[in-house]
């Protein structure tokens, strides 16, 4: 028996499945070969260590995750053997059908639209010169100034209207105040008139009585 054979047979020897003839041959080799003699207890010790290893238990959520989420993942049709054309179509179409791509497209369009709005550069006729930062900046500045002007104008307009309104109100108030002053005068005048009339009516009576 050589050392290679020994190494192979040692596994069966430790399992206890080696025939008596092979066992004797193995033990004979171990007694004659220093290397193998030292090797044997190491292997036995390693085996004894490994027998002490406890079983690991996966978390139950791992099982759930695999059982319910794996099929939802990258493959839609389970266990389906796909034709070449189908495979090719999926290979080329799948990246295009990703929600990420759709989102990216939407963001690109939005940013172009904003570029057009803010800088005033027409996207349809955009040129290399339009992408010049100076130009973009001046365009944005222009827009900003316009916006500011518009805001100021609006504010001025609003102020004018407000001034008009407040003056009108003042006028109305004044008028109201004036009419309020007039009314009591009017009333007293009317009273006087009535009294005069009454007196005038009574006087003839008195006159008649006197008569």
């Amino acid at each position: 028996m050589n050392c290679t054979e020994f190494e192979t047979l040692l596994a069966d020897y430790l399992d206890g499945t080696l025939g008596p003839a092979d066992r004797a041959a193995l033990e004979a080799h171990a007694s004659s070969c220093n290397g193998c003699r030292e090797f044997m207890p190491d292997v036995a010790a390693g085996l004894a260590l490994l027998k002490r290893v406890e079983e690991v238990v996966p978390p139950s959520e791992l099982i759930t995750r695999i059982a319910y989420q794996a099929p939802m993942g990258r493959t839609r049709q389970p266990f389906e053997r796909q034709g070449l054309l189908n495979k090719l179509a999926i290979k080329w179409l799948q990246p295009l059908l990703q929600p990420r791509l759709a989102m990216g497209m939407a963001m690109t369009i939005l940013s172009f639209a904003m570029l057009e709005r803010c800088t005033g550069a027409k996207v349809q006729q955009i040129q290399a010169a339009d992408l010049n930062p100076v130009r973009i900046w001046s365009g944005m500045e222009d827009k900003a100034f316009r916006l500011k002007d518009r805001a100021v104008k609006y504010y001025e307009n609003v102020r004018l209207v407000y001034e008009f309104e407040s003056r009108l109100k003042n006028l109305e108030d004044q008028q109201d105040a004036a009419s309020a002053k007039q009314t009591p005068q009017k009333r007293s005048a009317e009273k006087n008139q009535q009294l005069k009339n009454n007196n005038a009516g009574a006087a003839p009576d008195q006159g008649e009585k006197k008569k």
Partner: protein
Amino acid sequence: MSAAAVAQLSLSSKTSLSSKAIGAAWNWAQVAAGTAQRLDSETTLVERCLSGEQGAWEELVKAHTRRVHSICYRFTGRENEAQDLTQEVFLRVFRTLGSFRSGEGSFLVWLTRLTRNLLVDHYRRTKHERVTDAIEDKLAVLEEKTSQHSRTEGLLAGREAGELIQAALQKLSPELREAVILRDIQELEYREIARVLEVPEGTVKSRLNRGRAELARVLRRNKVTV
């Protein structure tokens, strides 16, 4: 000794031999029947999965997650990596189950081979990322932790011993490590391991013994008494 006595002796020895042989054959037949039954049920389960039966996939996952996770954990030594790899294994199973042929061997061997191949790929991919030797650190920490009390008591507590063995396992080369895991932890047959690793049975046994010896030496070199 008379001729009759010799004849009787030979007869009795014959009967005892034959009864032994019958017993062995019976045992073998029982084992074979058990294996055949297991193979049958596995094959049916796979077929049910392939036909798209509701719940069959779940059953398959439940039946094999523990084994796959255990192999991954023992090979990588990290729980989160083991979980990711287990998930990856089942994703691959899901995609390639159609390529499993029951005639070529058991589903268990097929699944274990798939797991092993993925682990080897993972090992090669992450080899350069493992700059720091985490195992050495772990051994050092554990050694320090246990040096005060357990050294004197001789044997380490079960959990710590398990951790140490796990750490030492990471010091083995992947070839030795996988042989040791499949035989001594997963308790597969040599024949099955040979099919998983696609090497002759003799190679499996020799790697296994070298792995066991190396494991004992690693722990001895770190002066750990487990």
